[in-house]
């Protein structure tokens, strides 16, 4: 029998565990990853010549990070690992990759998409000024290069990453001026029953809050962001917000890291023509999959946070489970008992993730409250007022229609950063449910592709 060709996209927790399962089954998968090193975002590895210890880089998750990295290192030679490879399209049963100007088209029998997540962002007036970062971006700077995004940093948004990155900055010696959480503290209490599904992770979160308090960082709950102060020439100079008690405050800073938990990177699933459904809990469109990770398209499997935000621990389980499902579908022997146990693990994390969504709700109302002069789509320079004017003039109420007329979400990020907020703004203006606004259709290339592609081949 010819060895089936399995392609895994992504070398984070899900991709690594998927590759491990393939190797254990005697298959040599192709592992494509955009990063220079494996580990993905949460377990991002520092450059080769950096020597910070695991405990310093990954805190409470040091053991998991080290285990994952060691697993991946052990797979080298047994997998066809291609780092710094952008998958820019999936079509015709092939994965289309670009590494600098080198292009390739790889056929597959099974495709596992372990594409991970990026920050879910809610625009704030002034978020285009230099010094505005996503929480993930702020964390990349620290983990990869040991640099802070500024001298006086404010963390704003909600979700576990808000506290985690703020703590990592405190530990690294950066000056964290404040943590501004849009979620009211009461939401966390209500979410406790679900959060207790994984007590150790819940405890990690509590410990982060305590650590910030001990470090003397001001933590505000239930705030409403009003504006990032600054100008185009000198960047961020401060932040203006309303406290939970309704008092307007201003804090001076030279950098802001923001985010509201995460959103899955689903563009490749979209290009692979997977069906999507609206998830009312997170108010996001997610690719459909069965309990094992099978998408609506035969031979295409979805695992990790790229399919649904369930966290890194769940990603390890769903990555392995997705690979076992693929192997089983290819007719290879797999341990059915192990699959059942992995399914149970993923379910536990799903309950915890529901808790997180309750504890740190996406402040959808902020999109509709954006002032007209606030930039909504940074790539294309579209303000909230521009979009509202286009809606009034054309009657557009569907995401792709609004994009065609206003350019919102039409730029280099293809709406990955502004799309969710734009949909909320449209829904509020049109007074329709956000699912009726629909979702932006993904188009290749999922990230910018050089016109010089293939030039030297």
């Amino acid at each position, binding site marked *: 029998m010819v060895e089936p060709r399995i392609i895994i996209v992504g070398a984070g927790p899900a991709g690594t565990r998927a590759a491990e399962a393939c190797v254990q089954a005697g298959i040599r998968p192709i592992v494509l990853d955009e990063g220079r090193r494996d580990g993905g975002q949460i377990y991002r590895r520092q450059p080769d010549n950096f020597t910070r210890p695991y405990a310093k880089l990954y805190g409470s998750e040091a053991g998991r990070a080290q285990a994952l990295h060691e697993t991946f290192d052990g797979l080298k030679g047994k997998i066809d690992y291609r780092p710094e490879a952008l998958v820019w399209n999936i079509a*015709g049963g092939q994965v289309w990759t670009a590494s600098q100007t080198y292009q390739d*088209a790889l056929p597959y029998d099974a495709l596992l998409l372990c594409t991970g997540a990026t920050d879910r962002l809610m625009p704030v007036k002034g978020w285009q000024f230099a010094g505005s970062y996503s929480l993930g971006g702020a964390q990349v700077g620290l983990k990869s290069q040991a640099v802070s995004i500024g001298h006086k940093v404010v963390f704003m948004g909600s979700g576990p990453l808000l506290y985690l990155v703020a703590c990592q900055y405190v530990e690294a010696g950066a000056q964290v001026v404040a943590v501004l959480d849009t979620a009211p503290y009461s939401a966390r209490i209500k979410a406790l029953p679900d959060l207790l599904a994984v007590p150790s992770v819940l405890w990690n979160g509590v410990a982060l809050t305590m650590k910030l308090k001990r470090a003397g960082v001001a933590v505000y709950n239930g705030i409403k962001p009003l504006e990032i102060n600054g100008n185009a020439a000198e960047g961020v100079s401060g932040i203006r917000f309303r406290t939970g008690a309704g008092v307007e405050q201003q804090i001076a800073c030279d950098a802001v890291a923001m985010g509201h938990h995460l959103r899955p990177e689903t563009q490749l699933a979209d290009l692979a023509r997977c069906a999507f459904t609206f998830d009312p809990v997170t108010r996001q469109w997610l690719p459909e999959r069965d309990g094992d990770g099978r998408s609506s398209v035969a031979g295409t499997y979805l695992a990790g946070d790229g399919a649904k935000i369930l966290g890194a621990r769940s990603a390890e389980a769903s990555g392995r489970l997705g690979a076992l499902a693929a192997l089983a579908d290819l007719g290879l022997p797999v341990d059915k008992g192990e699959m059942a146990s992995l399914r149970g693990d993923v379910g536990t994390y799903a309950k915890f993730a529901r808790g997180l969504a309750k504890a740190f709700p996406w402040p959808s109302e902020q999109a509709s409250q954006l002032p007209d002069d606030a930039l909504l789509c940074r790539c294309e320079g579209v303000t909230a007022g521009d979009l509202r004017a286009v809606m009034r003039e054309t009657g557009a109420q*569907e995401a792709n229609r609004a994009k065609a007329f206003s350019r919102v979400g*039409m730029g280099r990020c293809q709406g990955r950063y502004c799309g969710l907020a734009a949909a909320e703004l449209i829904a509020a203006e049109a007074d329709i449910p956000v699912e009726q606004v629909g979702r932006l259709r993904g*188009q*290749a*290339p999922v990230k910018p592709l050089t*016109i010089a592609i*293939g*030039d030297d081949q």
Partner: protein
Amino acid sequence: MSGASDVIIVGGGLMGSSAALFLRGHGLSVTLLETDLIGRQASGTNFGNVRRQGRPIHQLPLANRAIAIWRQSRELLGADVEYLQSGHIRVCYRERPELVGSMEEYAANARAEGLELELLSGNALRDQFPFFGPDVLAGSYSATDGHANPRLAAPAFARAAARLGAVIHENTKIVDAQKVGEDFIVTAADGRTFRAPILLITAGAWGNALSSQFGEPVPIVPKGPNMSVTEPIPYSILPAVGVMTPLEEETVYFRQVARGNIVLGGSTRGPSFPDQYRAYVEPQNTLSQLKHIRRLAPQLGKLNIIRVWSGIEGYMPDSQPVMGPSATTSGLYYAFGFSGSGFQIGPGVGETMAEIIAKGATDIPIQPYRIERFATPS
């Protein structure tokens, strides 16, 4: 009966939308029916060339009529469709010197139809437009052509028509059309029916499905344009640029929009599926397009594309549209199958069809587009 009017138009692309506007100008009541949303397919996904040069000489009167509408589009539509009369250049490569002769002959014939073209050597072109690569042998420059934004154009015509009283139904898929007595009865998938003594079919790639119901099938082939766009750079490339070549693969073109992005088009067209309402960009066609763009303008190799797209276009075997009255049924008119070249002439098509319907005749030559050319001898 959902509605009765003087004219029913089936197909809300640029042709149908502009016809609706001009029919209202003649005082006729209009109902415009669109399967999806106005201008979503060929009209909204094409390159956006407002180009007369390169069209068949017999089409230039229609193109001239259209350019007059584009020039006053802002006033006519009350909307900015980003029309820029910034020029158009058609070039040929060193390996095809015989095309210079074709360009000269075309320029002479075009001048007789009121289109002035200036022939330039490769070096003269490169002096003025330094982005051209060394393979470019010569070019034909039209100062009075340009480009516009396809995403905005057809919807702007439709809104202008609606303001003048045209009734527009989107999300209305027509499944049946027939003539009963003096009237056409047109039925939507959800059972609604519409009645009018005149029916205009502007249904693009879906045109044949309706013309067949009147005994006039045509060999239309659905395809999709191969489009890309770059990240924005400072606005500096004024004219739209295209390659004259017999090879489809080499036929690429680009234009820069005022915002700074460069729109790339051409090379091999992709498949499209009218029944499923989908069109796909094939990755190998994107790669082929970028390769030929690098040859045309090597400096563009330093940029990134950020998005590709396609849409559903209807192509006729002779690349000429079906335009004019039906040969079988009085009161029935067609304007579809523009074969990837309908954007510039679109508003002229709408005005001409309105004229034919309202006045019974036009001075614009449309004889080459008659549907009878596809009739099978009985």
